């Protein structure tokens, strides 16, 4: 028995020492990533007066640098394609934890998909996995049950299979992150697009508690940190869903503002400004950014 325990302990110690070599891959993983925005947040490399949160609508439909030029507010876009409101809540919480508070937050909404299950809108774990070397990120992954507690002590539990791929990630034209964080659709999509004027009823019964909680938490965080929160409905190539809008308003605290794109602006019904039914091309994003700048100037809150 003694020999068994002696060997087990010796083997465990050697394993514990040898596995630390994996930290090389863990440290290398963030360097190979193309999108470094989340790492910059965790490293306290963000100092902005206005930040934009959202999914691809937020990433594609607003030009943060233009907003900065027009309003004079130092702006940055932290919208992630395919992310849901729970992820936006996480980004905000992380930003506030490591960086100076911004004055204004623009939260781009996914219209009727904001609170309901939608397979294309998820918590973007893929953005967190390459940053597992950071304890904060690892703790979030443990909390979300994507890593186990052992990852606090073992590099082998922390590392991801993709971390062993030492190839640097690159980006395609429509996924290029601009200096201010926006990801603009530079190349049109030539697929046929028909304006949808059908009015649909919003199904409140499909709403998910987690998403609603995150939405309320975003408002709480902004209130607590004295940040002006503005909700943004960006243009769509279909009729504005007033049914969802009514529901949405009932969840918004009175101090927060809502911007809805100018539904009477006929340009928003022109195909030439759209990449697809929910995402603008660069020219459309510039047009909508001007509208947003005007709104911010009118509210005169900065």
């Amino acid at each position: 028995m003694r020999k068994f325990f002696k060997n087990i302990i010796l083997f465990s110690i050697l394993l514990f020492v040898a596995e630390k070599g994996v930290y090389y891959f863990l440290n290398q993983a963030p360097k190979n990533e193309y999108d470094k925005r989340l790492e910059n947040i965790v490293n306290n490399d963000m100092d902005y007066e206005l930040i934009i949160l959202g999914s691809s609508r937020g990433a594609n439909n607003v030009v943060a640098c233009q907003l900065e030029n027009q309003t004079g507010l130092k702006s940055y876009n932290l919208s992630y394609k395919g992310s849901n409101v729970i992820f936006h809540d996480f980004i905000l919480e992380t930003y506030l934890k490591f960086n100076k508070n911004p004055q204004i937050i623009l939260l781009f909404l996914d219209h009727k998909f904001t609170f309901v299950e939608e397979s294309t809108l998820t918590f973007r774990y893929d953005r967190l996995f390459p940053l597992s070397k950071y304890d904060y990120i690892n703790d979030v992954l443990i909390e979300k049950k994507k890593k186990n507690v052992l990852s606090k002590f073992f590099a082998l539990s922390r590392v991801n299979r993709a971390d062993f791929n030492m190839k640097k990630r690159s980006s395609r034209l429509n996924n290029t992150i601009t200096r201010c964080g926006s990801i603009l659709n530079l190349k049109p999509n030539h697929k046929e697009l028909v304006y949808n004027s059908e009015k649909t009823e919003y199904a409140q019964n499909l709403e998910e508690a987690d998403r609603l909680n995150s939405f309320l938490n975003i408002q709480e965080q902004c209130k607590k940190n004295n940040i002006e929160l503005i909700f943004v409905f960006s243009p769509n190539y279909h009729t504005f869903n007033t049914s969802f809008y009514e529901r949405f308003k009932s969840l918004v605290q009175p101090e927060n503002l809502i911007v809805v794109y100018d539904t009477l602006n006929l340009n928003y019904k022109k195909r030439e400004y759209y990449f697809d039914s929910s995402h603008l091309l660069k020219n459309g994003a510039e047009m909508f950014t001007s509208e947003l700048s005007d709104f911010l100037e009118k509210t005169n809150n900065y």
Partner: protein
Amino acid sequence: MYFNSLDFAVFLPVVFILYWFVTHKDLKLQNLLLVIASYVFYGWWDWRFLSLIIFSSLVDYTIGIQLSKQEKLSKRKFLLWTSILVNLGFLGFFKYYNFFAENFVEAFSFFGNKIQPNTLDIILPVGISFYTFQTLSYTIDVYKRKLEPTKDIVSFLAFVSFFPQLVAGPIERATNLLPQFYKKREFHYSQAVDGCRQILWGFFKKVVIADSCAQYANQIFNHSDDYSGSTLFMGALFFTFQIYGDFSGYSDIAIGTSRLFGFNLKQNFAFPYFSRDIAEFWRRWHMSLSTWFRDYLYIPLGGSRGGTWMKIRNTFIIFIVSGFWHGANWTFIIWGGLNALYFLPLLLANRNRNHLDVVAENKMLPSLSALFNIGVTFGLTVIAWVFFRAESVSHAISYLKGLFSSSLFSLPSVRPTNVLVLLVFFMLIEWVGRRQQYALEVLFVKRSRVLKWTFYMFVIALIFVFSNETQQEFIYFQF
């Protein structure tokens, strides 16, 4: 509690220490510890179903004692049937009630009578198929006077609920396992180290092989209409390795864990994918179930002693019942039937016991004919697994139609190089270790400690890395 959970990583050392350091002087106390540990292990999943195991154990314990007192055949038969009805009654209710209710309704609808199915929302207790068969074997053996009934209730409870093999086997016979509870267990260094090595290999099979393959098998099976024949072939191939890695991995962990406590369980898998015909495959796949059906169903039905028709009937019965044992779905029944069809030509030609040895026993590589036979047998099992994995019979048929289309010879759209490389690595190790109980049994054992430990660390590293992303439940828990 799952073997691949942190809970088990804490549970096992705690029980091990209590077993060898606190209770080791008193056999009864040691057995009692195993009973308690086993109930904790099982109750971790759902404590309510503990009552089922306890009830089933008490019924068979009592019937065993009554059988020893009873000489009259009619009364002995009555006791045996009581045990069979109680055990199969539970199994039938929890596992098959909805299946029969739905099929009953469908049969009526076929004749024009519309009735509402009266299905129930039943949770299938984990491992019920395994411990039911284990406890049944005890009563049958006592009835047949092959075994003296035990009067030691703690040993009997420990035998039924022994945690390493409680939820997914191997299905132990009372003749093998029960006497091990009567004897004082000694700690042997070599046995414990061997147990650790087998646990390690079991985890590798489960976490690295099965779970990696599961990702792709699920993707392809769940969207089978969208894929070409060649990709569907990849899906079936991935499932073939998934089910082997998953189930034989569980068995390895179970057997290895038992060895840590001084117990020896039966081998459950003997490198079945190197079989040269289907008969050999079934002697090497889920051996504890195959032999159970052989001893308690096939032989009582007459086995191969009768005429040709009897042989055919009995073969179909055991394969179909074996399929049905896996789950209440027609897919499993057809899977069993298909294997019976594969088996039939060998049986009729009296060639079902041709390959009793290990392939290429004294050679490094198989002969060309052996390789060809292995390939054909493997191909047949891959096809049969499609029925096992498919959601329904129609899904399996459409899957196979898609597989055997002209696109079978196109480049598959799903071909993860890393998983394919792993499978080659895995099969190489399995081939090298095919003469042993499990592949790692002798690999590097006689080499220097540096080489041996480096290899084990490499395997552990793979297990850790793969477990970070792909962890899945054991498939056989659902049976």
